[in-house]
């Protein structure tokens, strides 16, 4: 069944399936129910790291190096652990700044520098070309081998046939179309590709299943388990060496360590890894699951690498079959057609996944950080005046994708045959590692400058080109081998693979050591020889202190434009309709009705810049916004002075903090005191106004009656007598009122005199009852007493206590109905307190008034219709007197059921002590 047409049909059917997955994910995203917003999908999408290199190349590497392929997967395991710190920080920054790519990220960090963005793009493009060529080589080789079925023959050498007959050329072409269809359908301010991520995650599953299937098949069907393969391999001298490969000829510990470091960088700084891990991340928390799930994926896909490699070497005669193809050729040799096809599809998955994400990421960089800034700067194009640039942006990206794949193809023609798959890929890894100092330094070192980043990137890239890229060209015969062996111009010290005489290392380790020294060295030196500009400093702070920020970053734009101008600008890149949508939503957020009412202030300019940054990158966005808005002229000297002063301020900050806390405490106390004063002042005002009012009432009636008597001398004597009596009574009331006001004032101000002595409460109660018995009799109210025979003495002022009792008794008499009224006085005592109750069967007190009656001048009842029966101060005074002696006065009452006024006083300390003693005895 493995004819050419069948393989091609199956491949296209599979790619069709990928489109279906992508379409489904995009549709769900449009409905707001994202399928990729999920830690599992996120982890699987990270597995785009496992490309054709992993799928075919690891086995090839293992056949010559043993476990030498593993550091490439151990490094990312370590990085993912630190991902919770490093990657999370990058994700946060990327989201706040609407970062679109790695180049955008680096450019943004170093003052939105277009130069840096461009340099990163160039390095990424040149560095990744070998990697893309690796995928093309793997797919075209596997296709040709499968096509030869049932024969197992290695395909002809690259470049040995016409381009138009070369499978790799068509593979490149189809992959370009595929990537274009996936990644450049529309422009969006978020620059996220939900469909792409879903398809990648799906592909990760397919390639894992395919590889595990072939692994299980080789280990358990072709051989008798893993132990069997290794036992047989141990019998062959060429394979036995690979059982203990480290430290020997096959690989040193140094190259092991450097490969680990290299892959630790690659997992973050390869453009496609940055794309899926940072740009396409929907939730920072996904990093937590990815920290173990993604390494687990890599472990699973690597378990069978060694068994397949050894199985292949054992199975095929030496030198006939390339170890890079064992994954495919082993099932083919057993006539397992279905499995062979599955392997081909798995390899296709691995390769297409890589190519799609890589080219989309790179095309975004090429467009946003290389082409657009150039076009926008060249005035002859008058691009800044075009109305709609969105289709131009998309076209640039499409062209970039085609160019990238064609570039990959030509690299394959040029250097593809000189190396095994893994070695080609490692060249790209080393290029991506050049971004590490600039990015990691930029995340944690505030002082890193644009000059430093530029110098570091240039130095690292130059060394990489010299020690890895040129040797690759030389090996393919393009440069001449004597360049490698004798050095340029015959200078042996400058031989690219043994720079300055550093020998004994493999090529990658050698290149990594020199390029990292150059890169980090130049980065540090460049950063310390010059001061940062103000704009750089602003961006550096934004990146380093990203966790301290709450909202979106601040803005240096001066409000000097209109909302409509900005909307038109955004519309040119995102399409006018989308711009209207965005600006209307923004206007609503700011609480105005329409876009026309928006002010062209710095927030709005910043908003527009962010929208543009999401599409064309930070550097271009700044250029574009600068055409309609003016940037705040940041006073450099001023800013630097502030920064210098800031370091001194830090020295004092501790003391300041302490002082501030003290001040705050003092302020709180003062505030509380002030509140209390205000309250007292208000109470005083209330009191005065109430007192004046209460004084006026009796005065008014005295004056009225006096006037009647004065104006009517012929008044009948009985009437005259009655009026005089009224005048006397009102005068008495006035006197009483004044006395009580003075009394209360004295108690409250603490000036009252207290003559405290031990008192027998029973005696005082009896005396009070005697004193009031006349009143009770005259009102026809019965007064009864139920007093304990003896109670412990209390400490109090006799006259004051009498005052309380008299007040309670006269109140009780007042509110009882004459005739049926009945008042009972009870006295009881225990070891700690003495309690007095005065119970009446009068009208009672409404529940809501219970608390009020103890307040000054509060008389219960309708004051309009009923003549007040007292001054309204009595109970207030009573409560204060009882309170003064440590007791409590309260009332229980039901309307119509009468009231019980009760108070308790503590037993005098001497008596209580004696009581306790006697109790103990």
């Amino acid at each position, binding site marked *: 069944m493995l004819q050419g047409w069948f393989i091609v049909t199956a491949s296209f059917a599979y790619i069709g399936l990928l489109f279906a997955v992508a379409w489904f994910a995009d549709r769900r995203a449009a409905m707001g129910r994202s399928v990729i917003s999920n830690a599992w999908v996120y982890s699987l999408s990270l597995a785009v790291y496992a490309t054709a290199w992993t799928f075919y190349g690891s086995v090839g590497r293992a056949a010559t190096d043993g*476990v030498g392929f*593993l*550091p490439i997967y*151990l490094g990312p*395991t*370590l990085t*993912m*652990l*630190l991902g*919770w*710190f490093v990657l999370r920080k990058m994700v946060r920054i990327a989201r706040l700044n609407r970062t679109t790519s790695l180049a955008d990220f680096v450019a943004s960090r170093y003052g939105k520098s277009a130069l840096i963005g461009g340099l990163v793009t160039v390095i990424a493009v040149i560095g990744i070309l070998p990697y893309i060529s690796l995928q093309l080589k793997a797919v075209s080789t596997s296709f040709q081998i499968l096509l030869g079925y049932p024969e197992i023959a290695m395909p002809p050498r690259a470049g040995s046939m016409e381009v138009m007959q070369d499978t790799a050329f068509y593979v490149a072409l189809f992959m370009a179309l595929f990537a274009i269809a996936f990644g450049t359908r529309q422009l969006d301010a978020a620059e996220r590709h939900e469909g792409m991520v879903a398809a990648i995650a799906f592909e990760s599953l397919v390639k894992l299943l395919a590889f595990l299937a072939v692994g299980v098949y080789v280990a358990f069907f072709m051989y008798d*388990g*893993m*132990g*069997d393969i*290794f*036992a047989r391999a*141990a019998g062959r001298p060429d394979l036995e060496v690979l*059982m*203990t*490969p*480290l*430290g020997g000829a096959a690989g040193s*510990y140094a190259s*092991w*360590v450097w490969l*680990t470091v290299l892959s630790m960088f690659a997992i973050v700084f390869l453009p496609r890894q940055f794309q899926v891990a940072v740009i396409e991340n929907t939730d920072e928390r996904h990093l*937590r*699951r990815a*920290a*173990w*799930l993604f*390494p*687990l994926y890599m*472990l699973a896909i690597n*378990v069978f690498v*060694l068994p397949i490699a050894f199985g292949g070497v054992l199975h095929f005669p030496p030198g006939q079959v390339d170890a890079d193809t064992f994954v495919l050729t082993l099932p083919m040799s057993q006539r397992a057609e279905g499995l062979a096809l599955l392997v081909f599809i798995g390899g296709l998955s691995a390769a297409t996944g890589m190519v799609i994400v890589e080219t989309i990421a790179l095309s975004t960089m090429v467009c946003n950080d290389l082409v657009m800034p150039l076009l926008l700067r060249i005035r002859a194009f008058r691009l800044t005046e075009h109305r709609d640039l969105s289709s131009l942006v998309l076209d640039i990206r499409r062209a970039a994708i085609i160019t990238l794949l064609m570039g990959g193809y030509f690299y394959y023609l040029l250097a593809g045959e000189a190396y095994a798959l893994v070695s080609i890929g490692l060249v790209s890894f080393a290029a991506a590692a050049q971004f590490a100092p600039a990015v990691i330094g930029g995340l944690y070192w505030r002082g890193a400058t644009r000059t430093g980043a530029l110098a570091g990137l240039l130095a690292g890239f130059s060394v990489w080109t010299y020690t890895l890229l040129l040797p690759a060209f030389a090996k393919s015969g393009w440069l001449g081998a004597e360049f490698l062996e004798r050095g340029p111009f015959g200078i042996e010290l400058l031989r690219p693979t043994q720079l300055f005489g550093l020998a004994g290392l493999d090529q990658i380790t050698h290149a990594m050591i020199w390029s990292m020294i150059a890169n980090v060295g130049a980065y540090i030196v460049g950063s310390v020889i010059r001061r940062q500009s103000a704009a750089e400093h602003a961006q550096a702070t934004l990146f380093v202190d990203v*966790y301290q920020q709450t909202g979106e970053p601040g803005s240096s734009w001066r409000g000097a434009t209109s909302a409509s101008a900005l909307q038109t600008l955004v519309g040119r890149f995102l399409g006018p309709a989308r711009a209207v949508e965005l600006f209307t939503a923004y206007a609503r957020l700011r609480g105005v009705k329409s876009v026309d009412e928006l002010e062209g202030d710095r927030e709005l300019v910043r908003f527009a810049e962010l929208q543009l940054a999401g599409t064309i990158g930070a550097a271009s966005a700044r250029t574009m916004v600068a055409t309609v808005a003016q940037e705040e002229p940041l006073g450099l000297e001023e800013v630097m002075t502030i920064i210098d002063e800031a370091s001194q301020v830090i020295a004092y900050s501790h003391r300041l903090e302490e002082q501030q806390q003290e001040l705050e405490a003092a302020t709180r106390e003062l505030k509380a005191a002030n509140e209390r004063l205000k309250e007292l002042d208000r109470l005083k005002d209330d009191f005065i106004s109430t007192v004046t009012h209460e004084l006026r009432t009796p005065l008014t009636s005295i004056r009225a009656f006096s006037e009647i008597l004065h104006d009517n001398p012929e008044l009948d004597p009985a009437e005259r007598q009655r009026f005089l009596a009224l005048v006397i009574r009102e005068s008495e009331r006035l006197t009483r009122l004044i006395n009580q006001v003075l009394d209360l004032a004295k108690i409250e101000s603490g000036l009252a005199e207290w003559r405290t002595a031990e008192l027998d409460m029973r005696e005082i109660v009896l005396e009070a009852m005697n004193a009031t018995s006349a009143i009770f009799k005259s009102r026809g109210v019965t007064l009864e007493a139920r007093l304990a025979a003896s109670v412990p003495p209390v400490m109090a002022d006799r006259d004051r206590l009498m005052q309380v009792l008299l007040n309670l008794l006269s109140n009780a008499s007042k509110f009882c109905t004459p005739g049926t009224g009945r008042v009972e006085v009870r006295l009881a005592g225990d070891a700690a307190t003495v309690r007095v109750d005065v119970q009446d069967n009068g009208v009672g007190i409404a529940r809501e008034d219970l608390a009020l009656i103890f307040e000054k001048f509060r008389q219960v009842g309708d004051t309009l219709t009923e003549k007040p029966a007292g001054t309204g101060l009595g109970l207030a005074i009573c409560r204060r007197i009882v309170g003064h002696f440590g007791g409590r006065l309260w009332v229980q009452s039901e309307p119509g059921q009468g009231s019980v006024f009760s108070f308790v006083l503590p037993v005098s300390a001497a008596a209580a002590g004696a009581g306790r003693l006697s109790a103990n005895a």
Partner: protein
Amino acid sequence: MRKPSLRAYRIVSLFLLGCLLFNYPVLALFNVGASAGGVPVLYVYLFAAWGAVIALAAIVMESGN
């Protein structure tokens, strides 16, 4: 500066453990001719250590949700 959480310390410790396990000299201890069930000990060790680091990472990352 916020105080690092216990989880942060665990993650860093695990990272350091990984660096130790996947590096010289620990690797050299297993780079010997012996085999376990036919499989070379270096191979067994690398995958076991790798699996252990992943398992610990899963415990650290998923705890306290």
